[in-house]
């Protein structure tokens, strides 16, 4: 038997049992629309790549990280004693931020290309759930070093569920593991960050990716309006995949550059008796809601402002989530336009409140 016939008989053996040729045939038929906005198709892939980086660097950090009372000391060791520990940690932090950024770009591109329309409603909803989980990943991971900043960020962040009338204090205490942020908090945030969240995130991500395979990439309405013969596409294998991988390589280079040139710092160890450091503020992706609550609080002081703010948020997020259900069909001209205005309003509000937030710190 020649080497080729051995290889093909091994392939046949596996194929017969796992149905590889079906997957190969499917992959060969997969194609991606080509048009002026094709660039935005890469952002889902970039988000996926950054998530893989998070898994990889996360496991590397897990090799030396110790939750609980020793948390700060172990992060100090990783950062200052272990060779290149600062780089791994910096890559994990930078990649986390870049991932949230690229998910947001992905979300807005899906929004403006109206890729949430029938039959892609579940893609939109699962994507929004993934973004929500990513911010919880961010919030829980932020505490793990247990330095001054992460301590106060968590302290302040957990005041938000505490404002829920009735059960708020109970929820906050359950999350904290007591009335104050302590080593118990870091222990349970750790469990959340490395076990619970991945266990929810990964299957949901699988579902999201499966839907993309099932329905393919959505073309924007302007392209969908074109007659069939004027629409262009490229095969997924190998053309789009190669471009995708090139984007991954670019992302990796940007990440490596940021992580090494601007290494993530480690503050002083938290001290429950020390006053909050000056200029303390939430991470950029929490800045906008934080600032909005502050602004609403200035207009409507007291409990009314707090409840009003949370109510306003809930309504806005609900409207955003349900967009496929009131702008769901191709011929909804007027509604489609309103959806665009809603998207623009969302972007402007997010940007404006974030800028105001950073402005008022300085």
């Amino acid at each position, binding site marked *: 038997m020649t080497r080729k016939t051995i290889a093909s008989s091994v392939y046949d053996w596996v194929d017969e049992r796992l149905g590889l040729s079906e997957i190969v045939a499917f992959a060969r038929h997969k194609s991606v629309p080509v048009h002026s906005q094709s660039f935005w198709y890469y952002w889902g892939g970039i988000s996926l790549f950054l998530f893989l980086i998070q898994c990889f660097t996360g496991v590397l950090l897990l090799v030396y990280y110790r939750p609980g009372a020793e948390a700060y000391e172990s992060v100090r060791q990783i950062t200052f*004693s272990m060779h290149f520990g600062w780089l791994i940690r910096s890559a994990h932090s930078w990649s986390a931020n870049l991932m949230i950024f690229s998910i947001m770009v992905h979300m807005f591109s899906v929004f403006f290309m109206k890729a949430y329309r029938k039959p892609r409603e579940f893609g939109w909803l699962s994507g929004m759930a993934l973004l929500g989980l990513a911010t919880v990943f961010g919030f829980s991971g932020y505490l793990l070093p247990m330095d001054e900043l992460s301590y106060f960020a968590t302290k302040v962040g957990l005041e938000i569920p505490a404002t829920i009338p009735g059960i708020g204090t109970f929820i906050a205490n359950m999350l904290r593991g007591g009335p104050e942020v302590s080593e118990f908090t870091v222990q349970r945030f750790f469990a959340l960050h490395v076990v619970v969240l991945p266990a929810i995130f990964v299957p949901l991500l699988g579902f999201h990716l499966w839907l993309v395979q099932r*329905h*393919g990439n959505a073309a924007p309405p302007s392209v969908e309006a074109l007659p069939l013969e004027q629409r262009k*596409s490229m095969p997924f294998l190998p053309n789009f995949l190669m471009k995708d991988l090139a984007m991954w390589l670019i992302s990796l280079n940007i990440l490596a550059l940021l992580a090494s040139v601007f290494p993530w710092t480690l503050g002083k160890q938290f001290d429950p008796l020390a006053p909050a450091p000056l200029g303390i503020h939430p991470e950029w992706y929490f800045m906008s809601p934080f600032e909005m609550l502050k602004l609403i609080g200035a207009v409507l002081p007291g409990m009314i402002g707090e409840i009003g703010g949370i109510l306003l948020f809930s309504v806005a997020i609900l409207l955003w989530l349900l967009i496929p259900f009131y702008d769901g069909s191709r011929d909804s001209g007027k509604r489609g336009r309103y959806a665009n205005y809603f998207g623009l309003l969302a972007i402007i509000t997010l940007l404006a409140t974030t800028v105001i937030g950073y402005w008022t710190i300085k």
Partner: protein
Amino acid sequence: MADPTLVNGQITDRVTNSGEKEMSEEKNLTSNIVQQPEEPGEKNTRRTFLAIAGVAGLGYAAAMAYPIYRYLASPEEAAMNATAVTEVTLKDAQKLPAGSVLMFKFGSSPAMLIHHTDPAREWISMTAVCTHLGCTVQYEPQADRIHCACHGGVYNPYTGANVSGPPPKPLKLFKVAVNEADVKVSRA
């Protein structure tokens, strides 16, 4: 599927396109062979490009892998530095009663200091790592032997010689210097 006809149209299009492409490439190849058996310049640029790309790719992968390797190897390196230790000072160990043992770390591995009752060979120090499979051995003053509980190895408590059981080699002795305030143990 949003629009099966669209997808089908694309598929058939693509298949015929690529089919044609393959055929035309084959034609080119045969015509090349017939008319111009070698095109050294073209071949070289392609080969050079692939070689450079391959080396660059390997270099890139190595640049990513190196920090990860060093990061994971950090404790091992620290332990290697610890084995470079040549002398350990055991404070107040001179007060150790006769017929007893003090376990301590020589570098990164366990060692023992035995204060024997025999005045001729009073102070003995040796490694406490069994030469068989690396268990930590123990000094038994009643039996006047060093015993390994894992597989029953026995050593001589004065010379470190392997007396019975599976150990293939003796335990290594250290030099001992007893001072006023401490005991200094160093590599023999």
